[in-house]
């Protein structure tokens, strides 16, 4: 692997009161890789993502952003969003919400350009002025993706973000993500239950099971293996 490592999990373990979620997890992620994180519900996928985001203190081991002590910009697209049809903001305004910091309340010309650029990258330019509450499920997911990307992250986490989409929209969104992954060397962690999609888009996989974790090149991941892992308590 010629690309540098950007994230390293060392003997990582998270235990909730009387309930170990996972233990001794070791994983090194290099820039530009596309990982699928699979495993049944409750096995700790989202907990792992929270540990990676430093939102949860691990019980053992550590999550290191590399080079050691460095910072990693992470874009995160969660599974759920509380946005109903009355939600007033336009897609452009929604994407711009992620531009925070101790700055003026209004967006600078440079920030407007950054948003316009990411809207173009995600195919949302024509929809920029549409209230997001009136957008379709696929358009909303693209807007969530654009919001996560607007600060130019090195690592993008899709936390079951495609779960509620129909197959065509799901493919459209992941085609977009893989294109960004290949063109910009954006590292991707794709948390999913969809094994065919994981096999189509990822380069590596991490499977969490109640008995432990398994990882490797995506060619080694099969639906049968996932079922077997889920039974393996």
């Amino acid at each position, binding site marked *: 692997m010629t690309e540098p490592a950007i994230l390293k999990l060392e003997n990582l373990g998270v235990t909730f009161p009387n309930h170990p979620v996972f233990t001794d997890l070791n994983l090194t992620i290099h820039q530009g890789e596309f990982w699928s994180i699979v495993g049944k519900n409750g096995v700790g996928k989202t907990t792992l993502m929270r540990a990676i985001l430093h*939102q949860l203190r691990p019980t053992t081991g550590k999550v290191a952003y590399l080079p050691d002590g460095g910072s990693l910009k992470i874009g*995160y697209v*969660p599974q759920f969003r509380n946005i109903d049809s009355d939600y*007033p*903001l336009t897609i452009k*305004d929604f994407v711009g*919400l992620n531009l*925070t910091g101790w700055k003026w*309340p209004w967006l600078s010309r440079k920030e407007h350009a950054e948003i316009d650029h990411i809207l173009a990258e995600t195919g949302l330019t024509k929809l920029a*002025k549409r209230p997001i509450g009136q957008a379709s499920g696929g358009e909303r997911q693209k807007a969530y993706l654009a919001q996560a990307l607007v600060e130019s992250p090195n690592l993008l986490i899709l936390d079951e973000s495609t779960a509620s989409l129909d197959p065509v929209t799901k493919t459209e969104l992941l085609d977009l993500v893989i294109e960004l992954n290949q063109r910009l060397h954006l590292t991707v962690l794709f948390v999913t239950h969809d094994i065919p999609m994981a096999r189509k888009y990822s380069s590596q996989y991490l499977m969490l099971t109640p008995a432990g974790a398994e990882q490797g090149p995506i060619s080694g991941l099969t639906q049968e293996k996932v079922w077997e892992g889920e039974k393996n308590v």
Partner: protein
Amino acid sequence: MFSYEFMRNAFAAGTIIAIICGIMGVFVIARNMSFLTHTLSEIGFSGAAFGVFAGWAPLNGMLLFTVVSSVIVGQLSARSERREAATSAISALFIGLGILFLSLANKNASYATSILFGSVIGISASDVQQMLWLSILVLIVVFIIYRFLKFDSFDHTGARVKGLWTNTLSITFLVLVALSVSVAAQIVGSLLIFILLTLPAATAKYFAHTVGGMMILAVGLALLGVWAGLTLSYVTNYPVSFFIAAIEAVFYFLALGWQKVQTAE
């Protein structure tokens, strides 16, 4: 009308209130906090009654009670599933306390009415000045934390996963609402504050699709309601809060109707 000093003061105070309520209201609506705002206004009533009992200006009693309780409410209602119940309990307690303080202060029902429903006659130039300083304080804090507050209010999930200090933001915002409630209560009264803190912004939501646009429209609608309400109250001698409530409610129902027509098309 403007030859009377009390009307000049009322218009100055009304303008300040409309601006502060229009801006804060946009965040109140985005955060689904109309009910909590209503509770803070009841706490404001209790605080004003306590102020009278303690021999202070009612505004100071209001400030004390609303600011302290906003922090408590913020802590108690951090979990959304218990927010309504916790808010109802606090609301009931404070209305009771307000009545107790009024009774202890030996004030009659008309005094309670003026705290609850507001009054244009009692506003002095020094009241206007105090309201102005409080409003400037609120606006400065909003200006400083604007981007964080906007993100957290309009996309709480996104703000949380980004690691923004959402709990601190939530309590800071409640304190700002408490200050706004105390300011606005001077004219519309503590029971009707939520009119100006919710209806103009709720109406604006149907027409403007950027946060800035919603603020401008909400401030405009609040100003229209307050100015028209004060003028009609002066001409007819009926309560100003009735006119403000009626005007803002009409705007809101028109907006709802317009929205219905739009979605039907």
